[in-house]
């Protein structure tokens, strides 16, 4: 009886395990990064780290650098390959010399040959952040949510600058957004001038709850959103700031209006009637090592000892109509602005806005809505 029982269990286990099929070839086709030896060879022309997203790669290079003959070498998903269109066909592209006067398209193909995606690769001369009107936006490549970019009109063949990032790609995973307007960060037609951005704290549904992130605050910031870490280390997914400093910053200016959502909840979705939601708009100037750019993130963007100065609306309140603000950069950590450091690309600036001040800790009120438009950093000598 006993042996029979064991035999039956063994048979069932056998049934389950014996039919494991041969492993499929990789279906992924990512540019995972830029070859470190290539970066080392081009250290003198590069500013900061290349930004690699799921569909584009942006290199910031010193103004005036010749970009007509560059041969970037990328690291790829194992088994994947890169091609480009040339002479009416697809030819191998990784490490091949190309003219980056305008952005170039690379196509990544998966090992199993079933998947492919395009990357736009650009070599940009950085343009200090100045006036941001949020008129330049488009749908992401999957057509679900808005992304914003700035333009450098002086760079006619390559004007696009992907400086803005939001948590929208993370929210996309929850499946809660049916249209772009359902996302936490979205374009809105009725701005102070033209379009503005609308930031809304959203419910993330059962998927968000399943990973302990019940809400998503609308956010938009200068920097990079690393979706890869969004669910494991959400505050490290928001890389705040880029080396886009035009001088000593004096003020952060712009227009906003805000309404807090009715019910404030914490990370565990407990209602906290004693708390009321607040928005946040601030800019941070901080020091960076030009040869090893490390951005601030959600954990230290307000507290790092690298911060030189910060401009922030301390008490934004809930203005129902467009309200102008002009906040001075206040020094921090006893630091002063150093022109020498600026010339060596030793500063970065972040502009951050969010519909829930504690959104990074998943505390806030669903429905809190912040509208922002005509953001400006006033640099010394610009007044």
């Amino acid at each position, binding site marked *: *009886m006993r042996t*029979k*029982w064991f035999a*039956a*269990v063994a*048979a*069932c*286990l056998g*049934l*389950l*395990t014996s*039919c*494991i*099929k*041969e*492993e*499929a070839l990789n*279906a*992924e*086709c*990512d540019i995972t990064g830029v070859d470190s030896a290539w970066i080392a060879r081009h250290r003198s022309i590069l500013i900061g780290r290349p930004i690699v997203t*799921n569909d584009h790669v942006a290199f910031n290079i010193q103004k005036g650098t010749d970009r007509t003959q560059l041969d970037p070498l990328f690291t790829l998903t194992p088994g994947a390959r890169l091609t480009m269109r040339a002479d009416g066909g697809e030819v191998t592209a990784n490490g091949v010399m190309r003219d980056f006067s305008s952005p170039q398209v690379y196509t990544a193909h*998966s090992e199993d040959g079933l*998947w*492919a*995606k395009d990357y736009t690769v650009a070599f940009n001369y950085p343009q200090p952040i100045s006036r941001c009107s949020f008129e330049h936006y488009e749908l992401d490549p*999957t057509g679900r949510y808005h992304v914003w970019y700035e333009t450098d009109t002086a760079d006619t063949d390559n004007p696009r600058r992907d400086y803005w990032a939001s948590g929208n*790609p*993370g929210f*996309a*995973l*929850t*499946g*809660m*957004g*049916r249209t772009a307007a359902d996302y936490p960060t979205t374009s809105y037609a009725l701005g102070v001038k033209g379009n503005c951005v609308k930031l809304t704290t959203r419910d993330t*549904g*059962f*998927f968000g709850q*399943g*990973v302990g992130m019940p809400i998503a605050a609308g956010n938009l910031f200068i920097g990079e959103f690393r*979706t*890869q*870490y*969004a*669910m*494991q280390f959400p505050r490290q997914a928001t890389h705040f700031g880029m080396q886009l400093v035009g001088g000593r910053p004096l003020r952060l200016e712009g227009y906003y209006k805000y309404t807090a959502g009715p019910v404030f909840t914490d990370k565990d979705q407990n209602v906290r009637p004693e708390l009321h939601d607040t928005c946040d708009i601030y800019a941070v100037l901080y020091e960076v090592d030009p040869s090893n750019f490390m951005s601030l993130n959600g954990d230290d963007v307000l507290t790092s000892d690298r911060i030189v100065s910060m401009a922030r609306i301390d008490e934004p309140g809930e203005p129902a109509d467009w309200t102008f603000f002009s906040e001075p950069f206040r020094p921090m950590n006893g630091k002063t602005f150093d022109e020498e450091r600026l010339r060596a690309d030793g500063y970065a600036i972040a502009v951050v806005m969010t519909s829930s001040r504690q959104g990074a800790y998943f505390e806030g009120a669903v429905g809190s809505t912040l509208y922002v438009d005509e953001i400006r950093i006033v640099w010394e000598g610009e007044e």
Partner: protein
Amino acid sequence: MKKILTLTAAACLALAAAADNGTQPRDRDDNLLRAALKGWHVRLSAGFNVGGTTPLPLPREIRKIDKYSPTFNLAIEGNAHKRIDDSRWGIMVGIRLESKGMSTDATVKNYHMEAVNADGSGRIMGAWTGHVKTKVNNSYLTFPLLATYAINDRWSVAAGPYFSYMYNGSFTGEAYDGYIRDQNPTGEKAEVSRATYDFSSSLRHFHWGLQAGGEFKAYKHLCVFANLQWGLNGIFPSDFESVTFALYPVYGTLGFAYLF
């Protein structure tokens, strides 16, 4: 579960008591009973279900079953059996209270998953690479309809369809230590340490399948049996999008029966 345990305990006690009382006057009562049942023989049985709720065949995305636990699944059953015209053939009908469950821990690669939000507002879709823990525990009221064939006095076999009503079910688990690619393998990649799921409310209530097995009559009133129940419809409705392949309950039962 508690209810089933109590019922089974009661059944076992009844069987034990009945087995002790195999005396002469009781046999006469049995004869009277048999006459009243017009050739139908009644039996009560108890056993364990061991098996899996599994896609068949295993899809290529499942790379490894790291852990499998059959869990504790009881089946108690009452049957009526009748031989056809004193031939070796017969028919058996029954009613069975049983649970079918298991827990597994599997490594998957590029496993397509979809889920619709409870309020219908959106849909999660992606390709998951990492680990998946699954825990199934479904309770059924099952009606087997079997043809029997007696090989000799001691051995007989039975086969036929069964129809089940799931009155209580749970299908839960978690995806952990891996990453999801939004929409498909080219989408945004997000690492996940742990995400839980619960598809219990989407489970299908009606199941059917085929059952086949054999039994050995060890004593006049007691036989041991083994059978295999092969589910022929998936545990989720075919339009259920979260698990893209059908999961079939395939379970073996081992037990003993008291023949009245």
